[in-house]
């Protein structure tokens, strides 16, 4: 099996007002291509930090992180950004759409930073919005959409550059259970098509649907 993510003894500490906070105390795991993994753990356990490090938004204080076969701790800022844009699709609890851009523009944005052909960008963005069932809402601004619709736009955006990995950080946290269920179904479908999906969640029901659960407690992987 091809490994898409490898964490090797990753430690992360922050300096918060001159107090050193150890968020991760040395975690190691691997995720194979096409896996569906749920990351669980209480608040403050370090699971969000782990997520940020996997997504290359943040770098570990110690240890190594591989995405496919690339050690991101050795890359330059702009190369990390490039890799992140190409290989990772983020889905956030608070959707994090750009409020002044339409749904279509939001979905096009990741492709813009990869410098792809412009007409192809638009075509692809339309296809992705159709995939998440929002073909009628393309020209709406995020504030004009419901929570579920916004998260669908965010999923379409996450898929824009055909990423290897989808990282969803509490994707249903701001949604009612019915809408949340739909979003999870959408993520499961994507996983069936071959995309590696990591979901950070509190929700046991969601975690049960994953093939593998990684629990983080006090900055360590709980056995």
């Amino acid at each position, binding site marked *: 099996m091809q490994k898409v993510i490898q964490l090797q003894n990753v430690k992360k500490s922050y300096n918060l007002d001159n107090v050193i906070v150890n968020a991760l105390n040395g975690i190691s795991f691997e995720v194979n291509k096409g896996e569906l993994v749920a990351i669980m753990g209480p608040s403050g356990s370090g699971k969000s930090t782990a997520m940020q490090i996997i997504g290359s938004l943040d770098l570990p204080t110690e240890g190594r992180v591989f995405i496919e076969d690339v050690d991101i701790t050795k890359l330059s800022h*702009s190369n990390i*950004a*490039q890799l*992140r844009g190409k290989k990772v699709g983020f889905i956030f609890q608070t959707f*994090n759409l750009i409020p*002044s*851009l339409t749904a279509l523009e939001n979905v096009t944005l990741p492709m813009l*930073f990869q410098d792809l052909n412009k007409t192809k960008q638009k075509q692809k963005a339309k296809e992705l919005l159709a995939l998440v069932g929002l073909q009628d809402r393309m020209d709406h601004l995020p504030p004009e959409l419901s929570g579920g619709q916004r998260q669908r736009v965010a999923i379409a955006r996450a898929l*824009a550059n055909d990423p290897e990995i989808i990282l969803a950080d509490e994707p249903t946290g701001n949604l009612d259970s019915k809408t949340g269920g739909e979003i999870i179904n959408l993520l499961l479908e994507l996983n069936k098509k071959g995309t590696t999906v990591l979901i950070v969640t509190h929700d046991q029901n969601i975690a049960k649907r994953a093939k593998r659960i990684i629990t983080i407690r006090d900055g360590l992987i709980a056995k």
Partner: protein
Amino acid sequence: MILEYFKLAVNNITHRKVRSWLTIIGIIIGIASIIALISLSLGLQNSIAEQFESFGSDKILVSAATFQGPGSLSIGLTEKDVETVKKIQEFKVVAPFIAKPGSVEYKGESKFPIIFGGQPKESAELFADTRTLEKGRYLKEGDHYDAILGSRAAKKLFKKEIRINNKIKINGKEFKVVGIFEEVGNQQDDSAISIPLDTFKEIFKSGDQIDFISAQVKPGSNIPEVQKKLERLLKDKRGDENFNVVTPTQILEQISQVLGIVQAVLVGIAAISLVVGGIGIMNSMYTSVLERTRDIGVMKAIGAKDSDILKIFLIESGLMGFVGGIFGVVLGTLLSLGIGQYATEAGFKLLVTINPQLMLFGLFFAFIAGIISGVLPAYRASQLNPVEALRHE
């Protein structure tokens, strides 16, 4: 890609309309004042150059060292000096003048324009190729209580227009208007009244005092040499240096020099307002970075490089500068044209022209000011840590 960034920047600007416009107004004021001041001083330069051209470049002007223009207290030149000037053979015409404000009455209204006294024959020769008449004739030998009016003196000075052959009273004596000059474009000359020198002496009791002597050289003479020769001769005869011998070219140079300094000061002041405008952009950009911290985090999360963020924000600030530049250039040009028009109507011919080079310079300058003001905020935006930015509320 730049085009897409441009769209993003426009999107950012238009999503905070009021603040963007307030910021842009700062640049508009700065650029408009620079453009207006430069256009006006260029116009002033043109007008002065034209005035001197109409005066004639083949003339030399002799005045007392204290002579500051008509009406000032001038001591020094007398009929004797006129005789000295006449000794120089290179002069074709030597015309002495004296000028004082006089009380002029017409149809019960009374005003105080400048009255010039000049010898009829010599003045007529001197004016032949530079000051044309609109109506009537020049003064001639044998004229006594006769006057030529500047166009403004005839048309605007009094409520009722003065026409040829009308009678006016100067210092209580009745004069007949025999000629009216065409407009030359400066209020002083256009409002003046010319009368024969002898008559002037009589009604003003000015003795043998002379204010200035205007002398025209014969064709082909070397003017700087004649000027030096005259200076030496006057110094010899008078035994002092209490006089000035200048050519129009010299005066023009001096005025241009002074004008250059004035221009530099004015543009400097206008530049201050542009700097203030730039600081406005900087302030607005910092606020914008702060407001969009989360968006910046999102953009980084979906693959934006530091340089992409830098570009987006720089385009935004450059664009605000550029838009301010467009409006500023238009406003500044209209303003200077308006002032030029107003000045010309008020009797001071100010030749303000539309200067495409200056307009382009203004646009470019505004754009650069915008970019420069945006550098620090944009750099700050580009260096934001994505994790912290995403956590920002």
